[in-house]
């Protein structure tokens, strides 16, 4: 059953999953911010291009994207052979960005008009206004849905097991195929570990939320 070597391999899988989640989370966060702000752009072309991005990733299936990027893309051009980790990070990240876009846009729009006007009155414009005034305030209302989004992304990392990345799910499948773990213990272990990772995300996001509230002076 759960011998030392089995636990070691599961730990390796968890580590890959965490790396993947952290990197995809970073790509996804960046994509969400860029796309969310692009959705608010005054340029029609930028808004339109952004809408195409959002609709594409919200409309298509992550698993099909992964298969396509892993098996089909290199056939188009050998130079487009990315490692499974790269494929996973980019596909999961861009998918997350497609959903995060709406969160960012909504949160930015929820900052009161008065904040924009006060900034204008102080000649704080453009980038500075977004960077120092509006965005920091929007973060607070972004955090709860962002936490849920991170969990969705974490769940999505399981898909990379289907493109040969030795993530947690792959390790579980391999252990089961090698007969080291029964189906029942392999899959139960996976579910429990993923649940634990998800709870950790919830915990971290809650902490961030409290920090953000405090820096807004909303909580002692």
């Amino acid at each position, binding site marked *: 059953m759960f011998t030392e070597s089995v636990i070691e391999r599961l730990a390796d899988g968890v580590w890959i999953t965490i790396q993947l989640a952290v990197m995809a989370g970073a790509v996804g966060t960046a994509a969400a911010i860029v796309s969310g702000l692009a959705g608010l752009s005054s340029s029609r072309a930028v808004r339109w291009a952004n809408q195409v991005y959002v609709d594409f990733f919200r409309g298509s299936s992550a698993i099909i994207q992964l298969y396509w990027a892993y098996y089909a893309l290199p056939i188009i051009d050998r130079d487009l052979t990315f490692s499974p980790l790269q494929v996973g990070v980019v596909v999961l990240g861009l998918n997350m960005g497609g959903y995060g876009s709406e969160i960012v846009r909504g949160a930015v729009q929820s900052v009161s008009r*008065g904040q924009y*006007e006060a900034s*204008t009155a*102080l*000649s*704080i414009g453009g980038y500075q206004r977004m960077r120092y005034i509006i965005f920091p305030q929007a973060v607070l209302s972004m955090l709860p849905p962002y936490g849920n989004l991170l969990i969705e992304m974490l769940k999505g990392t399981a898909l990379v097991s289907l493109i040969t990345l030795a993530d947690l799910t792959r390790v579980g499948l391999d252990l089961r195929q090698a007969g080291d773990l029964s189906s029942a213990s392999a899959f139960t272990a996976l579910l429990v570990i993923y649940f634990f990772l998800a709870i950790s995300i919830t915990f971290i996001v809650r902490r961030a939320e409290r920090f953000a509230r405090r*820096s*807004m*002076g*909303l909580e002692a």
Partner: protein
Amino acid sequence: MAQQQLEHVADLVQTGTTQGETIVRFERVRKAFGDLVVLDDLDFEVKAGEKLVIIGPSGSGKTTILRVLMTLERPDAGGVWVDGDYLFRVEKRGRLQRASERHVARVRTKIGMVFQHFNLFPHMSAHDNVAFAPNKVLGIPKGEAKDRAKALLESVGLGDKLDEKPSRLSGGQKQRVAIARALAMEPKVMLFDEVTSALDPELVGEVLNVLRELAHNTSMTMLLVTHEMGFAREIGDRVVMFDGGRVVEEAPPEELFSNPREERTKQFLHAVLDRT
């Protein structure tokens, strides 16, 4: 808050205009929201150093004038002239043309505004609220901007609240921070839009004290929209009565309050003074 501290404000505020010259001019300014005409071919002028009080019934366009000056609204027609420049236009070969955002931004720095609902930045301490724009916008080194912000906050009686976030300040304290914040940008013209009307009655005094200090001891041009008639009388050089997007009557306060010429003004003053 000691009187001594307040006098200090005047020392911190300098304006580079000659007293008595025209500094703001509205020329046939028209602004409508949909079908509602809010400024109706409005003409009026403000002289440098003047303390102008604007009164009028709700919806008469008082806020809109200030917002147009602050570039928060763009007029549909007419010209707004501030200290040597047209605001949304530039003169080229004798004709007025739409100005670039850069031009508008430059003119904007001459004007400061204090809002009814403070609009402080909730995620910054009082100190940072005041120091932020001078540092980031005017490029004053951070240390210097912080020092000046501290002096300004002390001068409005908030030396002990430097590190508080706005949510932990009372309404009166918030509004004083907002005034300090606007002053820190050293505007030539300051706009005040009913800055006491969102305050609990017992907090109004501390804000009026600061305004009074500014009015009496600085040469700053001030446009105040207010319903505090006593205060208007005390500090105003001139009072403008507004209705339907037009100037109904203007006069020095003693004259306008004691002896209004127009029927509409009488009516309005009657209603307002009765209410309080």
